[in-house]
């Protein structure tokens, strides 16, 4: 209609009026949060990057700038091998976890396996437990001389020598694989469950059998979920510290994480070489997460059709009992055997590989839990208190942050939003141990070093995205008009947040809070870099006991941690349900 010259252009207002219009409750809070998040996430990674180019002289007194650390990574006697071991372990764990996760998800979601609804929660338990504790348990099950399974095999079947040996790289793959299988499970079970069964039915009508249909239709449809899960498992395995530390490092199979650990603490500590190794590990994981987020995750929604939801499952015939047995086997090796073994070991004053009924004692629990007793082990008793403080405080602060960030991303428009969106993905790309190295080199000369605050800071920075995703998924589902109508009713931004937004988000907030509580309660790879005497956490306490005390004491504290985690898992399932996990 009107030509371009006639139409009005964007008007510019006087500067101070514009500034005044910008300073609103909403903008002020969101701006402050954006700065805090950017500082928390970017600064440690930037300092880590810079530090990796500082080369320590042979005497360890002075540093020069250069690529020396990166050169040393390739010329060192151990580091290249550790690199290779990390790749082998991550690949092996990924294959095992993907196979277990996909097969269990398929059995529970798409077949008539008996009791599948009751089995699912138990399939998921390893997701919440500590893989480090799993490694300790499996060490006591599968060590050649004192392993419980090996002793039973010798007693019952008269086998000479050892049935299994988990103290090697294969043991690491085994434990990591079974503990991360639920990750893959969670990535695929949703789309398997929501998949339109007519897609499979139509394949069956063309004459394809059960196996062929599953291989050519079902699995390709959920392939984006499988790939996403596999990448997450690869990245998580590469950053896993506890399992290789317990099962392979003492026997000559170092990994990148155990090497970073020895460069961060101990006698030959070299933070700058540690920083370079962290950079190497971080670059690999960031690249993989980027591929997952950019190319794979967006596709996973296209496999699901919204309509025609019929809960119709495949009849496996007599094979359903095989599926049932397979499912039970998984729960046995991932949950029941480890816990039973820990209980048995923890009740002995010393562990020789055999149950001695006459010796049964609770002394290990007394020494690791009863902080008021003179024979209490400080590292263990400190751990419980510190971990509870970190889990309560950290989860609460992180959820407040997550809430504000989600709100900014989904409910406000402006320059900070895209940056925040980006900042809430970045921490997922870096293993805890890498971020912890960054936090260490950044804050080592500040007063927060050697306090619980540095641990809390690192925990929150690394894990707030999980809480943020929990809230975002709900925020996307509730209409923005619910907020807007409160503003129209005369309520300010803050009143709206308090009376409308937060009450509506309560389930997501609570699920996210418990999830972070669980993660913080078992956290090891950040804590192990940043703890000092007095700020041990539960997992550090377990590390201390396994390194400097004996297996029964270790088992006792492990059991204490496991019981705390199981209570939290129960609360999580009670209040959040399984959908909260897949978000």
């Amino acid at each position, binding site marked *: 209609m009107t030509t371009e010259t006639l139409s009005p252009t964007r008007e510019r207002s006087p500067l101070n009026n*514009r500034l005044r*219009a910008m300073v609103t409750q909403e903008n002020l809070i969101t701006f402050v949060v954006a700065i805090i998040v950017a500082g928390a996430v970017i600064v440690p990674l930037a300092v880590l990057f810079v530090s990796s180019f500082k080369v320590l002289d042979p005497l360890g007194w002075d540093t020069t700038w250069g690529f020396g650390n990166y050169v040393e990574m390739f010329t060192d006697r151990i580091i290249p091998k550790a690199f290779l071991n990390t790749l082998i372990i991550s690949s092996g764990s990924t294959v095992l976890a993907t196979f277990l996760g996909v097969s269990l998800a398929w059995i529970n979601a798409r077949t008539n396996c008996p009791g599948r609804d009751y089995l699912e929660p138990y399939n998921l338990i390893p997701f919440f437990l500590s893989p480090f504790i799993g490694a300790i348990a499996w060490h006591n099950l599968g060590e050649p001389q004192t392993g419980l399974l090996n002793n039973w095999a010798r007693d019952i079947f008269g086998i000479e020598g050892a049935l299994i040996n988990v103290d090697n790289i294969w043991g690491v793959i085994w434990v990591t694989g079974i503990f991360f299988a639920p990750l893959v499970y969670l990535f695929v079970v949703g789309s398997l469950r929501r998949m339109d069964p007519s897609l499979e039915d139509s394949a069956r009508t063309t004459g394809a059998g059960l196996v062929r249909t599953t291989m050519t239709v079902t699995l390709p449809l959920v392939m984006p979920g499988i790939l996403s899960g596999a990448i997450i498992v690869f990245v998580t395995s590469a950053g896993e510290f506890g399992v290789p530390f317990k099962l392979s490092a003492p026997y000559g199979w170092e990994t990148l994480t155990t090497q970073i650990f020895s460069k961060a603490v101990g006698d030959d500590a070299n933070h700058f070489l540690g920083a370079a190794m962290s950079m190497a590990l971080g670059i690999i994981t960031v690249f993989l997460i980027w591929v997952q987020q950019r190319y794979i995750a967006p596709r996973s929604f296209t496999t699901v059709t919204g309509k025609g939801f019929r809960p119709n499952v495949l009849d496996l015939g007599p094979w359903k009992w095989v599926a049932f047995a397979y499912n039970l086997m998984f729960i046995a090796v991932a949950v029941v055997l480890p816990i039973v073994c820990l209980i048995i070991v923890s009740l002995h004053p010393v562990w020789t590989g055999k149950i001695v009924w006459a010796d049964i004692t609770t002394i290990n629990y007394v020494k690791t839990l009863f902080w008021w007793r003179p024979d209490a082990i400080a590292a263990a008793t400190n751990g419980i208190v510190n971990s509870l403080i970190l889990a309560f405080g950290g989860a609460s602060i992180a959820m407040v942050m997550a809430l504000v960030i989600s709100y900014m991303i989904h409910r406000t428009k402006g320059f900070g939003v895209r940056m925040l969106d980006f900042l809430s993905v970045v921490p997922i790309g870096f293993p805890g141990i890498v971020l912890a190295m960054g936090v260490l080199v950044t804050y080592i000369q500040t007063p927060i070093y050697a306090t619980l605050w540095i641990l809390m800071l690192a925990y929150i920075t690394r894990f707030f995205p999980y809480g943020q995703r929990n809230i975002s998924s709900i925020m996307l589902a509730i209409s923005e008009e619910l907020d*807007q*109508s409160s503003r*129209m*009713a005369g309520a300010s931004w803050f009143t709206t947040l308090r009376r409308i937004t937060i009450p509506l988000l309560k389930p997501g907030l609570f699920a996210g809070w418990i999830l972070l509580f669980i993660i913080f309660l078992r956290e090891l790879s950040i804590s192990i870099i940043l703890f000092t005497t007095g700020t041990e956490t539960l997992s550090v306490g377990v590390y201390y006991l396994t390194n400097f005390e004996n297996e029964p004491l270790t088992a006792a504290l492990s059991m204490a941690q496991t019981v705390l985690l199981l209570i939290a898992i129960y609360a999580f399932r009670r209040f959040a349900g399984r959908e909260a996990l897949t978000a």
Partner: protein
Amino acid sequence: MTSENADSYLEVDNLVKYFGDDKAVDGISFGIPKGAFLTLLGPSGCGKTTTLMSIAGLHTIDGGRIRVGETIFTSPKEGLFLPPEKRDIGMVFQSYAIWPHMTVAQNVAYPLEIREWERPDIDDRVAEVLKLVGLTDWADSLATNLSGGQQQRASLARAIVSNPSLLLFDEPLSNLDLKLREQMRVELKRIQNEVGITSIYVTHDQSEALVMSDEIIVMSKGKIEQRGGPVEIYSSPVNEYVSNFIGIANLMKAKVVEVSEPGIGKVEVAQDGQTVQLPCRLTPGIAAGEDAVLSVRPENVHAVDESGEGTLTGECTHAIFLGSYVDCRVRWGDFEWKVISHPRNHPRTGDKVHLRFDAEHTLAVQP
């Protein structure tokens, strides 16, 4: 392009809103008197909702000025922006936006609590408004237990409870089924009449607009196409766009051949060798010799027995019996006329049909 009406209660002056580089609203101006019911009508993407959101303060604007009474809501040039909660507006949303964690009474009481009313006054007022919308029996049920129509009533109750200075409706009926929609139209209009709050209603449904409004603004691509009362918009659309959007019209390229007196003249339409001159009304601003679009509603085209001056002859391609009327299609060259006939006397498929046009209701509009 400033508003002509300085004594309007609500005045929107030269409103401009960008989304990125797209101009969602392109310098529109209008004003309405106190107590009036104005509808912004147009297809999705025409800028009607953006205009509404700008008045509500849920969007910031890039240019222009919005004033209600003595209060300037927003004027970027002067650096003025009144936050939405300070504007004293009631709003009914498309999704109703009834808070699921509160009961109906709590939802409706919310604006009064924000205004710090005394509890007994709140209870009295909530009861009064719930009675007005017919939800008295549902006061204590959770909002999620209500049907769509009931949620809509609750949403309206919440919007009017504080006697706001302005009532905004964002396609409030589009989620309801047809029957309920027709019923709620009348209901909404009744309640608005009763409370007498100045209202702006956004919809893409032309029949909704025709039924409810005192005035209609037809929008397209961020601009105003036409403004007028329902009868005026329907019977005298100013251009092809409006006549096409409101109701059903036969639209055909035409040439103005004669202007006999202001607003009256003749157009020539040609098809397949036949040329016919038709007497008609002319939209102001169209001169002889110019191209125009002929716009005739189907009910103003008549199938007659004899040909004569100002009639044209075509063939009936189908005639569909629809109860109270018969919907006929008459082929004339490449053009198909939509004709509404009386069921007792209508052409049959294959008949040769002569069409006559009411000069009073035949329009030549801007292309």
